């Protein structure tokens, strides 16, 4: 990336004592030594919640889906709400790592590793729901188009649920590859700092024996670009396909052509909110305030207010189109959504998703850590309600009033949901303890352009002593190589 950057831009790496070595130290430190007490507390709570979720899943499989609150009219409720919610959260990772990489947004480097990890874990949580919402989960493999002796009997390629299988598995695979390939140089950094032979061996295996040679860096960069290119359409496709679960149906309130863009915007919205929540916790928990700065928060909050407004426009468009359609069932579905027995859910959704992010128009609020956290929670809650509103209020009163009904969740419904949050945080906490939570190599890549140190030097003549300093650390740090390599690529383009 370019070395020069406008001094008007805020520094993305704070602290006037930073250098390459210090960066490595700050980040890798968290994976070394004993975890702090606050980590243990967080981990115990998360793991207990996760175990309760697993218990609720086992309860469901043992006794049947009857332990949920579903009924003859509302056959999906919390299960698919949670699925779409988690998938939406998983969206930010790809967007940050792929789209922002292609757009060369430097601020992504501080958060992309955690965001990608979040994507993986969110997709893991999301994937639980389509599996465990099946009445016969032990027959779940029927959903894959594998060669068989029954005819052969194929899956139904016209079913959006099948498209989901492909979309989500592709998304998961690509996200995992992207995340892992980015981790390799950083694993090597940890390896090189490792004090024990076992630790060295484990991280060596994890880093695939990364040597930091120029050839490796070149291939690394190419792979990043290829994966970014592959991922970018996925950002659009995954949630588009998830939205097809509803859009291709006949149920008023589901059968809507606006769903693909609306769902994608909503997914980015909720994903960024979750990244925000996580980053605010992480920077505090692991003392990474210098790397996840108010500038990062502000950039993300800008995305949140943009996507929140898109979502708001979509909500209003739905209402207008329902009125304009002149179609009784469509009109009733939206009338009922806003003013029916589930109006409390609709009001929650509108308040959290459309109204609350609008305060981010004020710079003071969008750069405030406290308000960012509060509002990110609001958006997370609001986006959960959006999926609940779409799924449950459309189903509970559709065509024949004779079948209209009401859905109330049971403790198992709630337990599984809370349990997935536990699983998510358990995985995230484990990740944060063992993996570099910030992409070391990538942060180093912007050190020369966007750190407070470089800003200070910006006025003074350029001094490359830092670079030499880094090189003295050997090939493992890799930051300087990356920077040089990158500059070269950039110049050639």
């Amino acid at each position: 990336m370019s070395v020069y950057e406008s001094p008007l831009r805020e520094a993305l790496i704070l602290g006037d004592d930073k250098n390459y070595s210090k960066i490595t130290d700050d980040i890798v430190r968290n994976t070394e030594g004993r975890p702090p007490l606050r980590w243990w507390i967080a981990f115990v709570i998360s793991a207990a919640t996760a175990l309760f979720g697993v218990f609720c899943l086992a309860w469901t499989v043992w006794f049947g889906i009857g332990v949920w609150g579903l009924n003859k009219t509302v056959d999906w409720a919390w299960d698919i709400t949670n699925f779409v919610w988690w998938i939406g959260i998983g969206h930010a990772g790809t967007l940050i790592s792929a789209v922002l990489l292609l757009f060369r947004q430097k601020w992504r480097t501080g958060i992309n590793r955690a965001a990608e990890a979040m994507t993986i874990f969110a997709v893991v949580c999301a994937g639980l729901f389509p599996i465990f919402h099946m009445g016969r989960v032990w027959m779940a493999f029927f959903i894959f188009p594998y060669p068989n002796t029954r005819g052969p009997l194929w899956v139904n390629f016209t079913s959006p649920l099948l498209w989901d299988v492909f979309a989500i598995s592709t998304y998961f695979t690509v996200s995992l590859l992207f995340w892992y390939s980015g981790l390799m140089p950083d694993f090597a950094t940890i390896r090189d700092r490792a004090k024990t032979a076992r630790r060295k061996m484990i991280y060596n295996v994890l880093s695939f024996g990364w040597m930091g040679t120029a050839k490796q860096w070149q291939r690394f960069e190419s792979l990043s670009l290829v994966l970014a290119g592959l991922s970018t359409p996925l950002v659009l496709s995954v949630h588009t396909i998830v939205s097809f679960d509803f859009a291709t149906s006949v149920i008023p309130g589901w059968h809507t052509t606006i769903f693909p863009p609306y769902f994608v915007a909503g997914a980015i919205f909720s994903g960024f909110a979750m990244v925000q929540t996580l980053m605010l916790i992480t920077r505090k928990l692991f003392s990474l305030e210098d790397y996840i700065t108010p500038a990062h928060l502000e950039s993300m909050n800008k995305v949140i207010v943009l996507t929140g407004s898109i979502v708001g426009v979509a909500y209003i468009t739905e209402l207008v189109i329902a009125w304009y359609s002149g179609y009784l069932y469509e009109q009733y579905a939206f009338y009922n959504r806003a003013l029916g027995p589930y109006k409390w859910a609709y009001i929650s959704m509108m308040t959290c998703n459309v109204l609350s992010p609008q305060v981010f128009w004020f710079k003071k609020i969008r750069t405030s850590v406290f308000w960012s956290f509060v509002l990110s929670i609001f958006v997370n809650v609001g986006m959960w309600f959006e999926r609940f509103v779409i799924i449950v209020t459309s189903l509970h009163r559709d065509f024949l009033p004779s079948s209209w009904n009401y859905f109330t969740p049971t403790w198992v419904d709630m337990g599984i949901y809370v349990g997935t949050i536990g699983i998510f945080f358990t995985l995230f906490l484990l990740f944060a303890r063992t993996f570099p939570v910030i992409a070391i190599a990538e942060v180093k890549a912007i050190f020369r352009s966007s750190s407070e140190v470089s800003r200070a030097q910006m006025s003074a003549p350029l001094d490359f002593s830092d670079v030499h300093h880094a090189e003295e650390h050997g090939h493992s740090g890799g930051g300087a190589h990356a920077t040089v390599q990158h500059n070269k690529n950039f110049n050639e383009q």
Partner: protein
Amino acid sequence: MKETKIWKGLPGFENQIEEQANSSEFGDMNVPALSGITESISADSNTGRRDFLKMLGFSLSAAALASCKMPIKKSIPYIFKPEDITPGMANYYASCYVEGGDYVSVLVKTREGRPIMIEGNQQSSLTNGGTSSQAIASLLNLYNTARFTGPKKAGADVSWTALDADITGQLKSISDAAGKIVLLTGTIISPTTKAAIANFKLKYPTAEHIQYDAISYDGILNANEKSFGLRAIPNYRFDQADLIVSVAADFLGTWISPGEFTSGYTSKRKVDSKNPSMSRHIQIESMFTLAGSNADKRIPVSVVEESLSVIALYNLIAAKAGVASVDNAEFSNKDIELTANELWKARGKSLFVCGINDVNTQLLVNGINNMLGNYNSTILWDRPSYQKQGNDAAVANMLANFANVKAVIMAECNPVYSFANGAKFGESLKNTLSIYLGERKNETSENCKYIAPTHNWLESWNDSEPKAGIIGTTQPAISPLFDTRQYGETILKWGGVNDTYYDYMHAYWQTTVLASQTKYATITTLWDNTIQDGEIVCNAPAMTITPNFTFMAEAAGKVKSASSKKGKTQLKLYEKVSIGNGLNADNPWLQEVPDPLSKVTWENYLVTGISDEKYFHNPDHKKFKVANVKVGAKTFSLPVYCMPGIPAGVFAMAYGYGRTITANEEFQRGFNAYSLLGTDLSNVTVTLTGEEVPLACTQIHHLLTHQGLGGMKTRHIIKETTLEDYKKNQASGNVIGEEEPRKEWIAEHLTTLYPGHTYNGHHWKMVIDLNSCTGCNACVVACNAENNVPVVGRDQVIRSREMHWLRIDKYYTGDEQNPQVTFQPMMCQHCDNAPCENVCPVAATNHSTEGINQMAYNRCIGTRYCANNCPYKVRRFNWYDYAGNDSFDKKYHTNNYTDSLGMQEPLVRMVLNPDVTVRSRGVIEKCSMCTQRIQAGKLEAKKAGEPLKDGAIKTACQSACTANAIQFGDYNNKESVVADLINNNERIFGVIEEIHTMPNVMYLTKIRNKEEIDEFNFTESLFD
């Protein structure tokens, strides 16, 4: 033949196979592979690594396979096959379901000797192939776990010989000591049983036979005795009447002979282009009954006003007829006057019936019918009905002088439950020789010293005479399951006759029935043919009628004085269509079938109108307010159900609940209304307790109109018109969208680029006539029985998880204080463009080449996407292991699910239809259009080498329908009834055709015989 080669390792094995295939052409049937392995190991014990691994893998997987094997249930083929029984082939036996005067002529379907289904007998002159929910559900009584397995004395098992000796000895000594013996039964319509009882009375001169009906018809019987000199019920001809006026008589649901009346009533209300006429029906009543919900005009009155309206009508008609009027009722209104005018206009072709059990009111009813000249026109005395014979006076007399009664023998009744003071009666039984001749344990049997268990009707021989000269026969469809004896035979035996009941009946027929008919000359032909047909119409006996209508003024005076002390709040006791008098309240099918109007299952409740908001319930949460009711000295509390069309101050409660002794406590909910008999119900106090409880309700009231974004619009789910409009335009009322005629709308809008299904063979379609459907629920129970539909129990119904494949939707239209009702049977619509089919990820639901939307249960993984995407919401998911296929816990009482049907019991499982898969947990199920019947019908035609005849295949719901509302057939057969209806009937429509589902189930518009159709402005937003 080659010698078996010994080989080691794979290369050798492959060569071996090749050689074998080349040389021997399967000449050697020894499988070389297996013998090779064993020999290679044993021959030179040089077990190679590969062999070892193979053996290890094989034994491991074999062990694993063996451990997860399903338990095998061995079935043993017949050594000597019974002549009639071919495994896999159903046998049908003509028989009659008779229970306390209810009579349905049926065909019993048996498979491998087990009765599995009850269908209507088309040959019956009385029920015309119709059935009732109770008749079909009685199948489960055969397999009820509460049945007695043998005779008992004081709770201990005894042998029949010991029991007989013991009882005859005691009866003899009682009789000798001039002690009274009472034979207390429900109405008995069997001539043979009556002869047996007569014989019993000969042997024990002090014996008295007392009949009583749990729901008493004493009033109408006594009135007829006074008016005509005959204590019987006349032959009502609902099929002949142009105008039917009913005061509180639910003749389509519960009154006297609902099956027969439904058949007659609906036959007069079939409307088509050739015959655009139908009868008109006016109902005057307080509680909304099934008949009232089918009426063209319903006049809601309070409970007391029901009998006052009879006086009012009497006076109004008397004025026109020039007959002396009676004491003024001081009650009338415009609608009553209009009704009188209409009755007068239709005199001679009208029919006036009244369901009030009061002799004086019934005398006035007779007077009205007499003034209208309905006797010998719509009310005949040629074949009076014997279906109700109870005598309240005799019962009262017995109870008053119970000290003299030394022995009570009870059959076909449950007096401890259905007497007003049953508990006291139960206590007093302990001082007598009490003998119960019932099928299964109940409140009465618990209080009896001796139990001489009787057969279920499906195990019995019997005859029945519901109407003079119409005799039905009951024949066993299964050998007795337990050590039981038909109660007729028991009475014979105790009466000193040692014949079997069969012989006695045969002899009785030879002496009596043979002479009363002219169709058959010999007893052999008579017997064989009648048993085969199930019913014979003998000569109508000569009836001596002495009409006398002179008691009117006195009767009116008594009615008026009885009504004078009315209070503001009155209680009405009524009978529910399926639960009836409650003797079969321990039947899970009947309990789970929703009441036609309230749609509540499993319990009773207090019904009231919608004039007082304080009683309103929260429909979405199925929470109902509990009220305390004070009737005289008695108080009880029940949840309140608000139902439109019931006047302010009227509360109603159903009989048949509050049982205390049944197979399990699932059947013991609610309050026993019989305990209120004899108390003054015209002034009760109702106070809310502030408590709320859920009711297991399957349909919650909602609007067909809405005032949302698009303003007030109507969902054209049900379509209706008036007879006058229909005469002008046969397609009237058949509109879609913005009131556009359906036909044009369809032609204009429903076009597609995509190729549809092509049906080269059959194309099954169903047509349901909304004008004929009375909402009686027989089809729902028939579907349950035919398709092994699980019963899920009250808690699951509260959670809206009832499994019924076929439900009857109820819609109100018009004025909310006095709405009209339309019933719409709703099941899988078998859409040609089915939304469920394309969303199933594993193609478990798909379209057959004959137009049926079918389910492959084995393929279903239970994503429930199809159920969500079904616009008709007819798909049902197995939330739990309802069928008990693979439960680990025998008593599966967990997580709000109780096995109410008893599917864990091998006895109950005998009811399962072997042609229909019993679904496992986690799969979707729904109406299959009785695909097993279609298959069977096609096979029959194939075997006969003929094309399939229209009407040869009947679905279960169709065969159960008394009103003939359901037609099913092949649309590709242009001669078929359904093809004709769909192509040529302007009333045809599909439900929500706008969304282009192209349903294969079609409906015919409802036609009301009234001035103008009510707007769909009925709202129950009050409840929201």
